[in-house]
């Protein structure tokens, strides 16, 4: 079982996001970065399946600046075997990232190509299915759990109001969401071992993304909330406001 797991360096959710002076970029100074939480599920899934099969390897891959090496080391510390950084001088998004990943994947042998369901920075949920399309392989998204048997993957996927079971031919791509794979913490031993594991860096060019952010803005401040009252006696007034002021009922 060979897995390729794509991971991204993203701001920690607790971090305050500040828009740069140019009005389009997001400030990076003073931001705490983490391994994208959804990607942690993908790394964990790859490790679990490798352990279950008793063989194979897990390679983690990231597209980004040199700082992304840190994110790859986090995945190596969790237990991944090798890492590849596809290094770009400028930030790439969406289709551009998918193309870079697909080009790299074409030159590699893998059974599973794993992603987080989305990255918590651009919230795009697109790179996984895009890479699958560029490679011409089947994919399933929002996977909570999967099994591998006889050249096939059986994936449980979250859909509105329930779940669906999808059977995929290997090689295939899966995007993971929260489910059966609770990410492990890197042990001290893992962190030490990660320092010696191979981390290859390759410079990539990256074609245009196809979309351009013209401007970034903060959401309109929610008008200061109003405490309608205390206890159950405030209920009729709440409903009156929802009906007459908010007009939602």
């Amino acid at each position, binding site marked *: 079982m060979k897995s390729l797991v794509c991971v991204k360096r993203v701001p920690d959710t607790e971090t305050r996001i500040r*828009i740069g002076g140019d009005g389009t970029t997001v400030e990076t100074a003073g931001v705490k970065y983490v391994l994208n939480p959804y990607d942690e599920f993908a790394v964990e899934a790859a490790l679990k399946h490798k352990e279950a099969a008793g063989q194979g390897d897990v390679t983690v891959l990231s597209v980004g600046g040199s700082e992304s090496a840190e994110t790859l080391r986090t995945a190596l510390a969790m237990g991944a075997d090798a890492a590849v950084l596809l290094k770009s001088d400028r930030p790439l998004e969406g*289709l551009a990232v998918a193309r870079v990943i697909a080009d790299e994947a074409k030159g590699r042998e893998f059974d599973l190509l794993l992603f987080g369901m989305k990255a918590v920075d651009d919230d795009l949920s697109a790179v996984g299915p895009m890479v699958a399309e560029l490679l011409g392989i089947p994919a399933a998204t929002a996977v909570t759990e999967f099994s591998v048997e006889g050249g096939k993957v059986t994936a449980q996927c979250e859909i509105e109001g329930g779940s669906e079971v999808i059977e995929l031919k290997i090689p295939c791509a899966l995007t993971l969401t929260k489910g059966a794979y609770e990410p492990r913490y890197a042990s001290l031993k893992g962190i030490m071992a990660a320092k010696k594991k191979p981390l290859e860096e390759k410079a990539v060019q990256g074609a245009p993304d196809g979309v351009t952010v013209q401007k970034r803005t903060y959401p309109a401040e929610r008008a200061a909330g109003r405490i309608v009252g205390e206890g159950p006696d405030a209920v009729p007034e709440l409903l009156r406001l929802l009906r007459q002021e908010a007009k939602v009922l």
Partner: protein
Amino acid sequence: MAGIFAFAESRDGELRKVAHEVVTAARTVADAMGTEVHAVLLGGPGTGAHAAELGQHGADKVFVGESGAFAHYSAEGFTTVIAGFIKEHGCDVAIFPATSMGKDLAPRVAARLGVGYVSEVTSLEVEGGSVVATRPEYSGKVFARVSFGEKPAVLSVRPNVFTATENAKAGAVETLDVSVNEADFGAIVREIKAAAGEKLDVGEAPIIVSGGRGLKEPENFKMLEELADAFKGKAAVGASRAVVDAGWRPHSEQVGQTGKTVAPTLYFAIGISGAIQHLAGMRTSRFIVAINKDPEAPIFKIADYGIVGDLFQIVPRLTEEVRKMM
């Protein structure tokens, strides 16, 4: 005149509510660009019965593709048909719903066409003849205004944001040739498991009644189910991660950074403190009501209306009053 493409999502032969929203969004864009709306409806035999409905919501033409192979959604099959349709008919903008199906399909279509894509769009404008989309990023902490390069502009719109409107006109219906072979698909849907009782999903419900650790015990969620029921089919029960992790509620109900992103018209946060990761999933709700005994709970900072007090006293009263009203 290339037109605006609208993907009309159906499941089990039934049109999804979001299909009306997608067609409505497409209608608005088409009117601003002076062009037509072409809706595509794919599914198993019989799905085409809903074509007229799409016309009423603004489609000038509805293209129906029925096939036994499409009784269940197939990313590969749908991508082939839709990308083929767009290549043949041309289109300026292709609009999908930001549902689990739409977010699986739209990026594949964009990649096949070799064009950019954005998801979860909350507002669309036409500027100098081109579409410009606004979408939340960083869990709603920032909004990005995005323009597109080569045509078509492919995007998905967030459910519940583009309120469906009806226009009197009924669109023309055409049949689409969908000669795909299921044996060619590398992925096949084997089974669909509906959540108990076919309840409304948090991702789609116009009203969400969400509960957190303040409910104390899993059994107490019965109270929230009763409140949701009082809204007569319009409300779903949601949950914070704390109660999902405790095993009180299924993950499918979790709202937040590692759960669902929701944008209902009305969101009740009951016994939920309002941690940043929870806000990440619900801050773009149209109206937020918080019920919490702690007046300092962060949830009150983003709630439109709040009641301070013990939820065990407030919720039953609320359910009673809502029942009277509905």
